[in-house]
């Protein structure tokens, strides 16, 4: 059996990659994919903990997260479509009509 620490380490790496990608990447869709990566790192952590703990709580939480992520993706992609219609671009640096 794979030890818990290995799975957790993978989860932390995935989460960090997602967070780093969120900050570095310059395309809205890619940034959104990085968020999905972070959520899946969370799912992995839930599953890893659920294997060690009694009960099915952790596995159940993963389903909640998947459902919520799907709802978020539906709304998020619609917002991104509206962005593309307004600007003909998906580059994050173009989204700057308000001064910082």
């Amino acid at each position: 059996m794979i030890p818990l620490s290995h799975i957790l380490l993978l989860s932390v790496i995935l989460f960090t990659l997602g967070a780093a990608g969120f900050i570095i990447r310059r395309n809205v869709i890619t940034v959104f994919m990085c968020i999905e990566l972070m959520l899946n790192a969370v799912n992995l952590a839930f599953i890893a903990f659920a294997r060690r703990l009694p009960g099915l709580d952790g596995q159940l939480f993963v389903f909640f997260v998947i459902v919520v992520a799907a709802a978020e993706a539906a709304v998020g992609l619609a917002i991104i479509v509206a962005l593309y219609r307004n600007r003909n671009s998906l580059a994050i640096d173009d989204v700057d009509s308000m001064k910082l």
Partner: protein
Amino acid sequence: MTSVGSADFIRILPELILSVFALLVMMLEPVTPLGKKTVLGWVAIAGVILAGLASFAIAYFPGSAFSASISNDGFSNYLIELLLLIAGLVLLGSMAYLERDAIDHGEFYALILMATVGAAFMVASTELIMVFIGLEISSISTYILAGYKRGEMQSNESSVKYFLLGSFATAFFLYGIAFVYGLTGTTNLDVVRETLVNSPQSASPQLLWLAVILMFVGLAFKVSTVPFQIWTPDVYQGAPAPVTAFLSTAPKAAAFAVLVRVFVGSFDHVASAGPVVFWLLWISAVLTMCLGNLAALWQSNVKRLLAYSSIAHAGYMLVGITAGGAEGTSAVLFYLAGYALMNVGAFILIAHLAGSDERYTNVQDFTGLAADRPGMAACLTVFMLSLAGFPSTVGFFAKFYVFRSAMHAHLTGLTIIALLNSVVSVYYYLALVVAMYMGEGKTQVSESSVPRALGFAIAVSLLGIFFLGLFPSGLLRDLNSLHVPWL
């Protein structure tokens, strides 16, 4: 194993009523003729009123519901009533606005109700996964609301930024929950606290700190504390003004409630996590107050100015949470009520004054408003004075109680920084008042008279501001006797 009974459903009656009315509005939307969509706004308001009555009724059925994931206690009851008040005022203030800008669709009202449902679940849940689901219900609705003017560049941009940074923050919050679950085997806040207090050796302190910090980062985004406030000015400026009125109050109140429940209610009691929680709150309170107030000094756009002001107010509320305990909590709850009244009032009035498509939102556009429309100028002045914390308005006592709770908790340094900040803030609030009363020239802003529903909403917030500003002790006494078990 516990089964679900009717008592469970009674204890979430306000949320159920709001959900039913949100669905009702969506079903009535296609059969409502164009130009008559305001009717749907009244349907939504009826839902809010019914839910308000229900929340008064369920105060007599305290207890937990759905396997202890929802708690119907004085704390949640008060906050749900506050959220319903915010939703009602925003609905009243947005109907004429939507018609004027030709974006009057039923979805708007349904989304406001849905966002309120999510926020209500957040304040009532004692289970972290339930908090997460409430957070997402309210967030997803507000992402859409922020970009409600689909074709408009700024509104769309506001929505994109809110969506990306909001989801980013949620991922952090959720990762924190995963670690709490891994350390304690549960996500129920009461059980988490008991497990960690009774057997502190079971959880490694480093992982516990990680969990606390991750959850704090997630919530800090939602209440926009420094350094997680970058999205706030752009989102508040770009979103339609009535939506900003909602965004700056309801989700914020809910996130503060979660902060109180999670940090003051649970992790403050845990010996190894207590100091981490304290310093996290202390540092972010100082940074948030200072940056919010200093940045507001240079703003020329009224919506952006109020966005920085709302960051500063989040800082003051964090002072109360840092103080913690029963006194800090009731001070923060009082602050939330006052903040909601003055912020919603200011934003819905600005939504009207800004004219169609919000052309006039600069401070100089308000020059000479007092000569042209003395009534509106007087109302806006009261909101500004209350935000600045002048005596006889609710803003004064809100700050007073928070600072007093900080003094009682021996946080002298923090209180002095907060006091200095509130002195600085007077400058930018009064800049708008000075422009309205002393500026020369003709005002740019809307000439049309105030619609009746909007006038009613503004009157309610003014009444609330003066009532709580002159007789604050009644509400504070109620808040002190909430009998929340975890304090």
